[in-house]
């Protein structure tokens, strides 16, 4: 009897989640119809113009899509060396040692820091360094937000990579050692290639995380509604434009912001799907 109730409860919970997600998608699509009807889907996605003045009102998502891709990919690029070294340290060189568990808990701690704390740290600590470096006059922009984002996504990329690296079979490594390979050669020719698709998947997941990050980016990117001209420039991401302008928006502008939310939802879902597929491929091997 108890077993039955438990099963029904589980089933109901799973179903509720399903309905909730369907509801979110429905609400997003429903509220974006107005702006898609006005400009067409492609006309909205590919237009870089964002003009909220009543007389010349015009909304397009392209500059925010570009801003999102700039920050997400640049931060991913910046995080790769750090995340990979942490993963190698924990999953190969110092696997199971005290140092490894210490580093692991520190990296996990990074994941637990609230986004706004990263934002404040970026604002007060990293920004003056960026100004000192002469990246740009006021420090804000793609560069600053990418640096902070990179640190934020290191734990996501490294923890999964660690798992995959420690799953590399010992037989392979022992074989390589017996042929006279050095440790570096083992890492390069055995560990990394064997765990490659797992590592790739973990970085894709980290990218998905970087795409949707809102609070810290809003505080650091400069919030200008135009396509960023390079990494030194300011911009706006899809998440930050929603956070900035949602409060006072109504009518077509509100619909445009919700449509941007829908686009972000789709992009993140696609990224997660790709990561899942890469991992599945790995499981089959």
């Amino acid at each position, binding site marked *: 009897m108890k077993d039955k109730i438990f099963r029904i409860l589980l089933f109901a919970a799973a179903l509720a989640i399903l309905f909730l997600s369907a509801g979110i998608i429905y609400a997003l699509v429903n509220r974006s119809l107005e702006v898609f009807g006005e400009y067409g889907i492609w006309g909205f996605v590919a237009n870089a113009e964002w003009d*909220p003045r009543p007389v010349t009102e015009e909304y397009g998502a392209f500059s925010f899509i570009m801003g999102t891709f700039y920050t997400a990919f640049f931060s991913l690029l910046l995080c790769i060396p750090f995340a990979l070294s942490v993963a190698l340290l924990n999953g190969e060189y110092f696997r199971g040692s005290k140092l490894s568990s210490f580093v692991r808990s520190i990296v996990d701690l990074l994941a637990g820091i609230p986004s706004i704390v990263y934002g404040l740290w970026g*604002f007060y600590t990293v920004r003056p360094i960026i100004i000192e470096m002469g990246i740009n006059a006021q420090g804000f922009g793609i560069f600053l937000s990418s640096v902070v984002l990179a640190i934020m996504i290191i734990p996501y990329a490294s923890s999964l990579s660690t798992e995959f690296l420690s799953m590399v079979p010992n037989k392979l490594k022992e074989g390589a050692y017996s042929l006279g390979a050095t440790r570096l050669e083992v890492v390069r020719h055995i560990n990394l290639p064997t765990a490659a698709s797992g590592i790739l998947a973990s970085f894709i997941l980290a990218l998905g995380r970087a795409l949707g990050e809102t609070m810290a980016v809003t505080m650091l990117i400069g919030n200008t509604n135009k396509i960023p001209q390079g990494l030194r420039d*300011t911009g706006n991401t899809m998440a930050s434009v929603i956070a*900035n302008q949602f409060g006072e928006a109504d009518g077509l502008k509100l619909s445009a912001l919700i449509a941007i939310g829908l686009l972000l939802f789709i992009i993140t879902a696609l990224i997660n799907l790709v990561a899942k597929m890469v991992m599945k491929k790995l499981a089959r091997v």
Partner: protein
Amino acid sequence: MQRIYLFILLVVLLISCNNNSAHVHSGSSEATLSGAGATFPYPFYNIVFRDYMRLNGKVTVNYGAIGSGGGIRSLRDRSVDFGASDAFLNNKEIASMSGEVIHIPTCMGAVVMAYTLEGVDSLRLTGPLIADIYLGKIRKWNDSRLKAVNPGVSFPDLDITPVYRSDGSGTTYNFSEYLSIVSPEWNTIMGKGKALKWEAGIAAKGNPGVAGIVQQTEGAIGYIGSEYALTLKLPVAKLKNRVGNYVDATLETISAAANVELPDDIRATITDSDDPGAYPISLFTWILVYKDQQYGNRTKKEAEALVSLLDYIISDEGQKVAVQINYAPLSIQAVEKTRKLMEEIHYGEEVINVPM
């Protein structure tokens, strides 16, 4: 399991207790007034309504800071007793309301230019210069046009970082309205609005966001609501007013902007005021009420309470509260005109006698 039930019971009990006390409270009050609208005067209304309720325990006043547009909509739907707005209604909007509306100014404010620049303690600016900075035409602090109005000030060779609001805002509206008046170029390129399409600078959310960036960035300049900037004591620029004087933004100079011939319905723009001592980007904030208070199922008691509340806001005590939190008080002339205007509020055929 029992513990959980106990906990739920406790929560339910607590909630019901709360409800009871709320009922008792509203039961004792004779009238409940609700209003909605502008966020700019919200801190002022918060305190002045609370003070009024303490003086007059029979009246409860609620205010929702949902933005000027929302306040006007709510008054049009008659879902509130008063609306609040940072801009007066134009004739078209007045015609769209469900009855004759009168405007009661409650206090004054301004938009100030805050800046951070080492070694520059006093900065003078004119409207056209501000326009050029935000249009990206003046990019350096040592620009000759800035030097020309600031004799004796040594400017560094530093980029100017103009900061503006990333969210829609009445502050942006007032700022751009002023620049549209003084700069034809601004009027054609930028226009006025609660949100604009900006040519230069970076953006942040809300007065705190702009103030934060300006304070932390060498060479930044940003427009901020005076009540916020004066409370934080940020360094702000002196602006050249219509007469040609460079004026600091203080409560006196902001109030002075209303020392012009006001129309009888007080619907006047005091931006770029003619008064020699006036700060140029000054503004009224308004409470809007229907002239005929007999509508829906409103009682005469509620109408009386509303008039007495308005009377309290423009009284010396109410205005003193405004000054304490850095809103500028109404000028004497504005108060007199408003008093006269309030006499026109009536309840059907009956005159409303203020009970206070």
